């Protein structure tokens, strides 16, 4: 029954998306506002299709309807309910369904937000683009990635359940949906960018319309990536949180271009420049989400995450090529209208710093993209097998990252147009001396290594500059008699809070990747071992039977205090046991325990192998991620997000209408 309902729902979504595109196209051709309004309403049918399909899938999963191939492959009667629900996105077909659902949701919000302007060709074109993207994903579901395919032959009585790694921690319920909210969210700004190109209304109006959409998508993507790192740390048990794995890179790439966009867009709003560049960044962000889906879903690169292989690959690659080709053609076609009226007067100015920032992010993106696809290129070129891994990415991105930290400190204090030495001195002296003080303090307490010291110093510099900005803004709010909250909301102020989050995260990254110590100890019950000033005592191992797995739990006392329980989980259908680490988290450092080998059943002394890893500042990563998400919310806070021209810091008044211009047809 779920199969029929699901297939019908997918057909409804696909048909509505296509009909919507057709109706809007005809409406635009005939300049018929009634058709345009009608066309926009198809979005709601697409949403209905996505919701029904999701409901059918969830019903099938929860009722263990093993007649569906997807449920037979990813469900089991013994899997706990939470992981049965999240089973939907534990494999390719269900992930595409989740993508479709999120996209339909975004399109519905967009339709609601712009319902009064359905007759505006810009909105109509944006809706066409959005619906076309939705049609593609429904097409995938109707064809090669059909989640509602039924099994051939007899219906199995039980299934293997989701991939063991995906049913070992509740974060699986948050990390993928968060990531998808990020990826898919960029569809809306992308749709408006294409609409601006098609309609030729290339002023700053569409930017202003989609600024918050981009900001929210960015916030979700940030949270999704940080949660993924946390998950990797808490669940995968190898002690790290970022492996430069292709799947991780696939999520980082659109984040990098989106971050560049959020910055360079300010130059366009303020100075009317960089129009082609901003369009390109949005196109890059959207197409990188599609490319990432291709890389991770087609099985073209195997990795710890790539649990799927299918014929979906060529279709997604084709769609990626189409997106890139159409976008480039449109930008080329509108080239003459995109020429910017402004000019940059001095490299030492806010816009100069934004340019440098964009160069940095572009270089970062290039390195990560090249490193990720290079094994494929090399293999295609001369059949050479090679890998590009963490050492490459770390070495190549570290200088870029440090440069970006430096810019983060300098850019916010630079005025638009041109900076004088006096201004720089006044605004940078305190942050710079704070940074130097931290560097000296680090060296004094024995921190060694140019990389981490540079990261700590530049991080402090950037954080001090951000705090200085917030202090100035609190003072200004006090003077103006407005609530102090206003000193923290809005794009610039919220952005500074995000910057502080980035610094905290960067310091965590530098500290934890530079000064980790790890070792494995074979211990009999009662024996102790020590590493970097921490003592671990192995107390024994017990076995816990759970419905869907068998857990061997070692009991290990850390520093004579609390007992921690790293474990090994044996899932019935998996050959290899999945470790679950146990972490003593601290402000300064984490003690990370893994059970590498449980005692053999017939061993006389009951020795187990315990992995101990002392890693400093890990908790800073999660804290930094949290601050970034919070800062994003502040930046998107309604009211006061656009500064009135008289409040600007010395530059020319914004060449931007206070309200987006509505153009009647």
């Amino acid at each position, binding site marked *: 029954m779920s199969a029929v309902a699901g297939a019908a729902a997918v057909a409804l979504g696909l048909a509505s998306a296509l009909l919507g595109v057709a109706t809007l196209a005809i409406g635009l051709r005939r300049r018929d506002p009634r058709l345009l309004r009608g066309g926009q309403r198809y979005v709601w049918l697409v949403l209905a299709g996505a919701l029904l399909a999701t409901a059918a899938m969830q019903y099938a999963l929860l009722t263990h309807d093993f007649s569906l191939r997807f449920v037979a492959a990813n469900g089991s009667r013994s899997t706990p309910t939470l992981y049965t629900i999240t089973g939907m996105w534990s494999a390719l077909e269900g992930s595409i369904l989740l993508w479709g659902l999120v996209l339909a949701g975004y399109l519905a919000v967009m339709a609601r937000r712009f319902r009064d302007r359905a007759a505006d060709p810009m909105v109509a074109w944006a809706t066409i683009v959005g619906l076309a993207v939705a049609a593609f994903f429904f097409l995938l579901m109707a064809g090669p990635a059909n989640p509602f395919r039924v099994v051939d032959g007899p219906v199995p009585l039980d299934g293997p359940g989701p991939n063991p790694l995906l049913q070992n921690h509740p974060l699986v319920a948050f990390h993928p949906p968060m990531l998808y909210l990020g990826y898919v969210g960029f569809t809306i700004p992308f749709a408006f960018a294409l609409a601006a190109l098609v309609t030729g209304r290339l002023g700053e109006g569409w930017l202003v319309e989609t600024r918050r959409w981009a900001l929210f998508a960015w916030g979700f993507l940030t949270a999704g990536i940080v949660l993924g790192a946390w998950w990797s740390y808490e669940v995968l048990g190898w002690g790290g949180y970022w492996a430069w794995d292709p799947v991780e890179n696939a999520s980082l790439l659109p984040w990098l271009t989106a971050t560049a966009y959020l910055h360079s867009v300010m130059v366009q709003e303020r100075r009317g420049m960089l129009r082609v560049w901003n369009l390109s960044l949005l196109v890059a962000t959207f197409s990188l989400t599609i490319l990432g889906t291709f890389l991770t879903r087609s099985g073209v690169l195997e990795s710890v995450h790539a649990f799927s292989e299918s014929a979906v690959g060529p279709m997604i690659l084709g769609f990626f090529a189409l997106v890139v080709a159409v976008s480039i053609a449109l930008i080329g076609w509108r080239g003459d209208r995109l020429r910017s009226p402004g000019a940059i007067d001095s490299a030492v100015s806010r816009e100069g710093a934004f340019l440098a920032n964009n160069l940095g992010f572009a270089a970062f993106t*290039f390195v990560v993209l*090249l490193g990720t696809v290079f094994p494929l290129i090399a293999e295609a070129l001369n059949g050479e097998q090679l890998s590009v891994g963490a050492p490459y990415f770390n070495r190549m991105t570290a200088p870029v990252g440090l440069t970006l930290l430096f810019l983060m400190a300098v850019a916010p204090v630079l005025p638009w147009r041109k900076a004088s030495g006096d201004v720089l001195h006044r605004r940078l002296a305190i942050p710079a001396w704070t940074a130097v003080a931290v560097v000296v303090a680090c060296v004094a307490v024995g921190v060694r290594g140019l990389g981490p010291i*540079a990261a700590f110093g530049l991080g402090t510099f950037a954080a001090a500059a951000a705090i200085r900005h917030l202090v100035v803004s609190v003072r200004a709010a006090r003077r103006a008699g407005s609530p102090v909250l206003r000193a923290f909301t809005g794009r610039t102020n919220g952005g500074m809070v995000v910057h502080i989050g980035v610094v905290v995260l960067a310091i965590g990254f530098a500290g934890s990747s530079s000064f980790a110590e790890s070792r494995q100890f074979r211990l009999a019950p009662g024996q102790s071992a020590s590493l970097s000033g921490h003592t671990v005592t192995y107390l024994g191992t017990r076995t816990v039977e759970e419905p869907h797995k068998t857990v061997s739990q070692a009991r290990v006392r850390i520093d004579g205090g609390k007992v921690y329980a790293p474990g090994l989980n044996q899932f019935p259908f998996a050959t290899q046991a999945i470790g679950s680490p146990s972490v003593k988290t601290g402000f300064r450092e984490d003690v990370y325990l893994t059970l590498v080998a449980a005692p053999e059943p017939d061993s006389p002394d009951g020795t187990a192998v315990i992995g101990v890893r002392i890693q400093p500042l890990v908790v800073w990563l999660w804290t930094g991620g949290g601050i970034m998400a919070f800062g994003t919310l502040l930046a998107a806070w309604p009211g006061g997000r656009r500064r009135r021209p008289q409040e600007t810091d010395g530059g020319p008044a914004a060449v931007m209408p206070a309200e987006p211009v509505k153009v009647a047809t």
Partner: protein
Amino acid sequence: MTRRSLSWAALALVLAGALVVGSRGDGSPPSDAERAHRIAQTMRCPTCRSQSMADSDAPAARQGREEILRRVGDGQTTEEIQDYFVSRFDDSILLDPRKEGVSGLVWALPVLAVTAAVAGLAVAFRRWRPRRRQATETDRALVEEALHQP
């Protein structure tokens, strides 16, 4: 003016001193275990995709680590140990691609791209140098209108 430059010079001096001290190691040469760990980080665990031999708990990675430690104990250089693993598996064992041949491109291309981009920006800046433009009648009218708006 001079006081300001003096303060920045002092800052640079203090910073340089701290960095010189900070970039020097703690003096003692790395132990065999540390060296072995560092080498293990540059090679892939043979049965995984992107985890290094240092990070993985797979049996093949454990054997690899023991082999590295043994060879470090025998006084072999990093290159000799890497060559041994390449001969046993293939080039894909190295997470740090070699700097010659096709794999050299992965190192060179970003450097070339960034250099080209910086050069391009420098040219663009020169072109962007403010050119004096005569205000047209329309411009004046616009300014006039804007100034007299309530």
